């Protein structure tokens, strides 16, 4: 009798742990993972997926220490992190689950509606200081950036500023909502926000990455057909050995149903 209880207990424990998954990491990806997990667990009542935030770096270091199964990240795994994983004999597998587009926004009264990447770089590194230089009104340019802790700040620096540093003394706001609010009420302002935050009170700028030949409007459609350039992938990282365990959930996220959830949250589906 005792033996039966013990075996059944261990079988139960095994199935529980087999279906339990921990996901941790980027706060940008957090709402997506949460929604996906909710509906995944509804369809598979035996599965349990736990999700926490904390930042991309936090998630990847948790993957390093083996406390999570999947690390969600709004940036690519860094060279250092890859090295540390290798030292422990682990291999990180990468899955892109969605895309997030960044829109550059200005005050609605601004006449400048098109900017090249080089011009954006000039604005945010402090070389261009007046809208006059870009064909607009004689008005000081006030660039707004996110705080240094934000993944968006890093991505914008890599993608648009080509790894150059932001101008000394740039305005930095603690949240995306605060950027939208400030730009709405400041005539010379310019800033960057996720596509999901666009509204009619601010004006999105068309961006050109080929020195002014073609300007592309930031929109979901243009991000899907890959013409809009300021797009970053959102990643799931998992350890190669635990592939069998995490595969069902990742498959679900990449399924048409999972991708539908991604568009609902305001990101761009992979497929």
């Amino acid at each position, binding site marked *: 009798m005792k033996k039966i209880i013990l075996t059944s207990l261990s079988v139960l424990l095994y199935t529980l742990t087999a279906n339990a998954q921990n996901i941790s990491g980027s706060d940008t990806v957090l709402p997506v993972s949460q929604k996906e997990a909710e509906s995944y667990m509804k369809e598979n009542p035996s599965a349990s997926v736990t999700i926490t935030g904390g930042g991309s770096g936090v998630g990847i270091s948790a993957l390093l220490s083996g406390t999570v199964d999947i690390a969600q990240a709004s940036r690519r795994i860094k060279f250092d992190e890859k090295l540390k994983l290798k030292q422990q004999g682990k291999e990180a597998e990468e899955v892109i689950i969605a895309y997030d587009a960044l829109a550059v926004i200005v005050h609605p009264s601004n006449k400048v509606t098109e900017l090249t990447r080089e011009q954006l770089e000039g604005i945010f590194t402090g070389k261009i200081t007046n809208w006059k230089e870009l064909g607009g009104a004689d008005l000081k340019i006030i660039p707004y950036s996110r705080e240094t802790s934000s993944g968006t700040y890093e991505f914008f620096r890599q993608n648009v500023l080509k790894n150059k540093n932001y101008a000394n003394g740039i305005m930095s706001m*603690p949240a995306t909502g*605060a950027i939208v609010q400030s730009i709405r*009420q400041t005539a010379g302002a310019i800033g960057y926000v996720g596509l999901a935050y666009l509204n009619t009170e601010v004006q999105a700028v068309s961006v050109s990455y080929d020195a002014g030949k073609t300007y592309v409007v930031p929109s979901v459609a243009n991000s899907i057909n890959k013409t809009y350039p300021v797009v970053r992938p959102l990643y799931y990282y998992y350890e190669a050995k635990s592939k069998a365990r995490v595969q069902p959930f990742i498959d679900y996220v990449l399924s048409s149903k999972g991708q539908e959830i991604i568009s609902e949250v305001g990101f761009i589906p992979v497929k």
Partner: protein
Amino acid sequence: MKKINRIIERFIEGILTVSGAITSIVMLLIVLFLFKEGSGLFHSPSVEKGYLLYVNSKNIVTDLSTPEIKHIFDSKITNWKEVGGLDQEIEIFRFEEIFNYYSDEELGEDYVLLPEKFAEVIAAQQNIIAYLPEQYAPKEADGVKALATNTISISDFFGGKEWIPTATPSPLFGVVPLVLGTLLVSFLAIIIALPLGLGVAIYLSELAGDRIPKFMKPTIELLAGIPSVVYGFFGLVVLVPIVQDTFGIPVGETAFTGSLILAIMALPTIISVAEDAMRNTPREMREASLALGATQWQTIYKVVIPYSASGISAAVVLGIGRAIGETMAVLMVTGNAAVIPNSIFEPIRTIPATIAAELGEAPANSAHYQSLFLLGCILFVITMIISITAEVISKKHNTNEI
């Protein structure tokens, strides 16, 4: 029975002593921790930890200052001539770029071939400056030379005018703009709040009679209970546009807006402490003054205010303390631009806002993390100086006047 009472008294006495001692020790430990974490900064290399800068061995430049490194990687310095080298364009190489030259397979198992490949790239270009991880640095290779690394100096930190903690490869930790910003916004707030606060306190304790204070004082004290983030939001949505329109300035997020919000936040503290102090003026003193033929106003400023001077200075100190340490509201309305302010209508960045915004993502024990702790130390020293000054002032007043 008496004996039991005595034992209980002893026991309570003991508990009180122990809790007092524990509180003091904890305070001391917190301060020690702050300074311990912060002091490591001056042992950190000025280039990001674990990384080195390499140049071609034919290059005559042997070391670069932190601002020079930053300007080179920002393409503001583009010729070696400007930093004491030959007349050559500077070619920047970040280690990630190696993956554009070679595939993962070519770099071998566990990247064993990486140092070799780095050396190849550097030796091939005379005008290159490369930013490489120490672990894979091409040591002892021909045609390659490491630049001397300095540690972050005390003068760079306390005298530096630029705060760019995430600049790669060499972050800049200059606290001058942060300290000036904090002091400017706090003192401006007190200058705005003090006359208002004292006025209201005098009105409530001397002029308002009995019924109005009963209703007004709780209302004012309720203001102290509003979360600071709500004040910040109010500031961002309401005050920022007002300031912008009234003064006709391009940006509404300025030191002045910050100090307005801080003044509003400090008012309840100032009013209630100052009012309590004035109310505590003994009735006999007031009556004596009036009996000598002084008017009500003369009584207020010759008797009540001098008598309550120490209470009023306590109110000022508490107000400044609230203003200097306030984080969230300031974070939302001052624009957080780390520049030395030329006027009160420019954005500033304060020390508490910097710590709150940056500590979350600063890797533990990195130079950035340590510099934030040092900022905490600076904040601690500033508030300590203010409280000591206030103590001295209020003591002087007490002995002179009464």
